[in-house]
């Protein structure tokens, strides 16, 4: 058998982390089992209030060894009952350490993956923060905790329009710099029409468009 973190170790570590996270006010964490392909993975899935997010992030980085911010996703839910905006953080505990050196020669860190335990188990953490209906959605920035969050936050603001309080150097990164203020293309009022595959190949110019589509962009 090859190198692999066992499902049992992963589940145990995820349970411990979920319990530690749940002890913070406003945070609700549980172990989540995700199936991709043929393998099950045990991850930590949590919700947090916007007020507790900063405290949660600091605790994760300082006490739980969460060292990697993978992705930040902003979602616009104009029609949902319980939220209008959502920010989803995907963090990871990678357990990467600088390798030690003996007499100036680096000794590479080789993990015995099949036998890792406790805080040495790499984990995935998903934290979702729901925001109420507001014209200026914002959560606390974690740019100073994980530098990897820096450009993720810039992108989330640029595309979805969710701001990050305390973020330094916010600017457009994917849209042109001269994009009008307040234009964030991934908000749901900007609509795209579904193209069936027949239409995409047989009617590229859109001559057969239905009257109902008049005025909509192809």
């Amino acid at each position, binding site marked *: 058998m090859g190198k*692999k973190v066992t499902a049992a170790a992963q589940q145990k570590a995820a349970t411990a982390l979920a319990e530690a996270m749940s002890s913070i006010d406003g945070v609700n964490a549980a172990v989540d089992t*995700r199936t991709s*392909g043929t393998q099950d993975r045990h991850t930590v899935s949590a919700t947090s209030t916007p007020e507790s997010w900063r405290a949660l992030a600091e605790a994760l980085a300082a006490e739980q060894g969460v*060292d990697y911010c993978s992705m930040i996703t902003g979602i616009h839910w104009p029609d949902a009952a319980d939220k209008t905006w959502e920010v989803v953080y995907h963090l990871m505990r990678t357990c990467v*350490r600088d390798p030690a050196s003996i007499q100036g020669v680096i000794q590479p860190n*080789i993990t015995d993956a099949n036998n890792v335990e406790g805080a040495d188990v790499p984990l995935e953490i998903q934290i979702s923060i729901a925001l109420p209906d507001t014209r200026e959605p914002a959560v606390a920035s974690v740019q100073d905790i994980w*530098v990897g969050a820096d450009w993720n936050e810039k992108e989330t603001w640029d595309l979805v329009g969710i701001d990050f309080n305390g973020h330094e150097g916010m600017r457009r990164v994917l849209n042109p710099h001269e994009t009008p203020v307040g234009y964030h293309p991934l908000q749901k009022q900007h609509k795209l029409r579904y193209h069936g*595959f027949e239409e995409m190949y047989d009617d590229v110019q859109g001559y057969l468009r239905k009257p109902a589509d008049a005025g909509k962009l192809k």
Partner: protein
Amino acid sequence: MAEMWISMGPQHPMTHGLWTLKIKVDGETVVDTEPDLGYIHRGVEKICEARDFTQITTYCDRLCYASANTWSHSYIYAAEDLLGVEVPERAEYIRLIAVEIQRIASHLMWLGAYGPDIGNLSIMVWCLREREMMMDLLQELGGSRMHYNFPRVGGVKRDLPHGFAQRARAKLKLFLNRIQEYESLFDESTVFLVRSQGVGYAKPEEMINHGVSGPNIRAAGVDYDVRWAHPYSVYSELDWQPSVERSSIKGADCYDRYRIRVEEMRMSASMVLQAIDKIPGGAETYHEPGDPKILAKAPSRAPEGATGSHHFEDSRGESMFYLAGGGEGRGKMPYRVSIRSPMFITIPYAAKCMIGYKVADIPAIMGSFDPCIGETDR
């Protein structure tokens, strides 16, 4: 001498794509940098919200032309998590073969582009020759040269064709021999060594904090790899170790990042050879497209509230998809598709790495991180 800003790009030999690197120089020394991206932003995430789950695969192929298969597989795993599909084991092996051959092709493309960056043109011709062998193999699987559209939700498009195993073995063995020629071409070239050694140091903990992963971090003496840390596919059935480079105490330099990719190509070739031997049902058996042995039935609609996510070891680092279900057409399309591009996060870090070095070191440092602007700008 007064400091001044210079704009390198959007068209510049250093950029490997379309983007601008603004550098502030004091004489010949770089004192500050600022990357400016977004020149080829196509809005893939938005387009995917108006496409059904099968159509999205083709867009994911086009995220990176040098590594199409890894991106479409990265999406497919997240989609399978969202739709709740169990994949046949044979399909997982075929996917692994496709992804690892693609990884070799992508690293060869990188090596071929990195040679001219630092003054060795012949390496480009050699690498593209070998890449052609890999592309031929992928073409047998997917049917086209660059954008294969190979995986399907629940399996793969086609089984391994007749004779594929034999041709793959022969080509990979030839490749494993020839890779030694590249090493001698690089490692015995004084120009290459002088320009790549001792520049662009990067340390593992700092890189992880900056969100850098993949070969770039393994070059610095740690073995973190999504393929074992967050296991997916059938990698655990194979005998393999992530390649790790013994860097200097200052961290990984450009030379280490070159070494790690050569070692990774060896490891990927060995994985493909093992997978061909171990594939359930045998590599010479052929199933028609749509056979349950290679393609499981999958629902076409995702319920509201369901989410799917998957971390994937891309050729350039950890890529990721996050899908929220319940979009238009009663869930036929996703509500939101979010893509993590490893290079989008790595390019700002690579730009920081250059500070303190000379202007002439910029192509060597930037090229060594393997930038790909297609996936960066999405």
